[in-house]
């Protein structure tokens, strides 16, 4: 014996003959028994002492992994990474994820069953198996049944094995050499390649995520956003008082407005509103009032503004009788000079805007104290 023997193989004509031979050959304990058949034979697993296939458990586990993967993926995408509300559903509405969870479960389970069976359990593809090069293979994949005594650690005695098979009724005995283990395209090679591709997919996916979602908000990229500058309504250490926004210098007036020609409210009472009461002026007045005044005096001018509660201030209720009786000029004076806690708006409102606000305040007052005459359609202005 120069070459080590892998197996001795005997051919049988019927499944019955094979099944009869297995127990007698097995009793001789010459080596590991294996059968090669054209189709699966019932009961041969027990006769050869083969254990149950673990494939069922593998498929169950991978199926569950598939379901959880799909759920996690869909939830993360729909509720965390890219939440969009469709059909009024909450972002994490898992019920809609079920169809895809099912499909991914089946997909994972199928590929585990198919590729797991071929690559992991059967170690296929493998083209160097001795049976493939044997004379018997033509019969094995056609209509005959082979029983093989395979070398099991210690050197197999081909003569004894051949005799055992012949005694059991084998028609044809063949001695097979060792497997050809040159680096073919084997299951190990394919598994390593597939693993590499899977790892590459994961790495490139993570890299893409990093490049798209994280990289743009990392320090060198955000310097455009985070340049040193003063932001309104924000704290800033540039000025001594720590405010980003400063009050205008005392005495500042808005552009296009003239100087204030009056000194006291009494003097101002004599001023007459120079603006006509047109739709445009009222619109301008409302805009300026909404921007500058409503925050304290309220949208109706009734002193209930959104800041009142927050600061505990008591801005004037412009609907009060006192202010209804005010001449236009005194309202103008209060806007320009400020009154009590109210600052001057001279720097913010132009001359036109100031008088437009006066008109608008008058309109608010009249709207809140409307007479029956005012209710008539097409009534006087």
């Amino acid at each position: 014996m120069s070459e080590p023997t892998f197996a001795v193989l005997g051919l049988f004509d019927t499944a019955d003959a094979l099944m009869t031979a297995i127990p007698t050959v097995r009793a001789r304990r010459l080596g590991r028994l294996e059968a090669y058949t054209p189709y699966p034979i019932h009961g041969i697993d027990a006769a050869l002492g083969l254990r149950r296939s673990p494939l069922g458990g593998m498929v169950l586990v991978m199926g569950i992994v598939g379901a959880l993967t799909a759920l996690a993926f869909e939830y993360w995408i729909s509720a965390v990474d890219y939440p969009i509300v469709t059909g009024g559903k909450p972002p994490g509405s898992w019920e809609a994820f079920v169809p895809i969870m099912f499909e991914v479960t089946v997909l994972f389970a199928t590929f585990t069953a198919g590729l797991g069976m071929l690559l992991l359990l059967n170690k296929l593809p493998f083209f160097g198996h001795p049976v493939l090069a044997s004379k018997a293979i033509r019969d094995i994949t056609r209509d005959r049944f082979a029983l093989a005594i395979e070398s099991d650690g210690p050197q197999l005695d081909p003569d004894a094995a051949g005799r055992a098979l012949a005694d059991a009724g084998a028609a044809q005995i063949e001695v097979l050499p060792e497997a050809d283990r040159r680096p073919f395209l084997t299951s190990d090679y394919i598994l390593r390649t597939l693993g590499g591709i899977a790892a590459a997919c994961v790495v490139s996916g993570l890299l893409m995520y990093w490049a798209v979602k994280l990289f743009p908000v990392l320090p060198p990229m955000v310097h455009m956003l985070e340049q040193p500058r003063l932001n309104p309504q924000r704290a800033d250490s540039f000025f001594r008082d720590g405010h980003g926004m400063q009050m205008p210098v005392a005495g500042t007036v808005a552009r296009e407005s003239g100087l204030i020609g009056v000194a006291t409210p009494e003097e101002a009472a004599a001023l007459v509103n120079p603006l006509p009461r047109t739709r445009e002026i009222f619109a301008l007045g409302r805009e300026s009032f909404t921007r500058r005044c409503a925050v304290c005096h309220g949208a109706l001018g009734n002193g209930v503004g959104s800041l009142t509660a927050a600061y505990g201030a008591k801005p004037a209720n412009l609907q009060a009788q006192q202010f209804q009786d005010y001449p236009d000029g005194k309202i103008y004076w209060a806007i320009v000079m400020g009154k009590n806690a109210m600052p001057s708006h001279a720097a913010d409102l132009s001359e036109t805007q100031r008088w437009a606000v006066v008109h608008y305040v008058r309109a608010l007052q009249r709207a809140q104290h409307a007479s029956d005459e005012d209710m008539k359609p097409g009534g006087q202005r």
Partner: protein
Amino acid sequence: MNPEAAILRSAIPDCLVEPPLTEGRVTPGSLDDQVLAFPERRPPAQWYIGLAVTMTAMAIGFSLIGYTLATGIGVWGNTSPVFWAFDIINFVFWVGIGHAGTLISAILFLFRKRWRNAIARFAEAMTIFAVMCAGIFPLIHVGRPWLAFWLFPYPNQRAVWPNFRSPLVWDVFAISTYFSVSAMFWYLGLIPDIASMRDRTSSRFRKAVYTALSLGWHGAASHWRHFEKAYLLLAGLATGLVLSVHSVVSFDFATSVVPGWHMTIFPPYFVAGAIFAGFAMVVMVMVVVREGMQLKNLITLRHLEVMNKVILGMSCLMGYSYLMEGFTAWYSMNEYLHHAFMNIISGTYGWAGWLTISCNIFVPQLFWFKKCRTSYFWMILVAIAVTVGMWFERFVIIVVSLHQDYLPSAWRVYTPTLVDFGILLGSFGLFFTLVLLFARVLPVIATTEVKGILPDAQPSRTGGGHE
């Protein structure tokens, strides 16, 4: 046979004894010589003629698809409010055709219906080809199919993900999973058969190809053990899948608010219709295969008869679904639903509604007669009627429901263009071209599975016959 089994066998009345699955004397060797020899011989002239016809149809279809892509989908008849028409009809039709294959290969496998072994391979192949035909239509309907990969959730530079609450995204997953699982199931079954072909061929080229494809399969008992387990698991998984796929397709309609679509009966109704249409197609192709490839002893008249019984059963189920649709419309007391149903039987497309009902419900009733179940003429007639009827059923569901919905001012009658018909023809061309090529190069009958159910194939000592 052991004595108990013999006694038991004699006590079973004749009508309960399963008739033999093959006719005449079939041995594993003769089976190989009969089935696996096809790829080794030159095909007959009829094969070339058939291929010329189907490839012409396919060429017409693909040129029109090219024309559509170059011009825009305005060349189709689709227009407001019928935005889904031939494209989606054909998609639903072809996905449905595929279902018979999975039913035969998976569900009948779980039920241990041994007659399925002879027809399973061909039916599975038809599943795969039908899903390929189906996949074309949503792809070209998106108008810019080169961007269709946007449907898949993959990290992209736009940082945008698909909406997982959309049934159209479910469809993408359902159809691609269905195709992968069917292909896996089909290939696993093919491996031992290709190994047989590898070991009987004398051509070096064929041997190399078959060696690569069979992955070095050598029929070891320790491999068969895992193989059978994998096959059983795949059958179980495919069973759940086949019921889910057409359900998901029906969600495209059922989750909308279009009257006539928004119904809970849609998923089971679609699945039943799919199996119905698929079986008709399988019967049609099987008759041709049986005659053309001289496989009468393997695909017996009993196979065809049993399939015709399935068609009859499914036809009755379809009749029930149609009645339920009418009942739902009446019972809902919803005038829109009522109008949608009356449209089917008496509207502009009333002829299509009645064609559907006649072809799907009335004509298959012929199969109550054994004479019709076992006669080529009648079974082909019924199979063609069912194929036409099921296509028109999808026409009715899609076009009739869409052309008149809530807003009467938007109603419009839909007319398909020649391009629509040409692409439909092309999909049939593609399907039958693939079928013909498959019959030429791969074993059309799962020889390994049939070998296992031949008489005396299994050892009698272990109580053979139970499976």
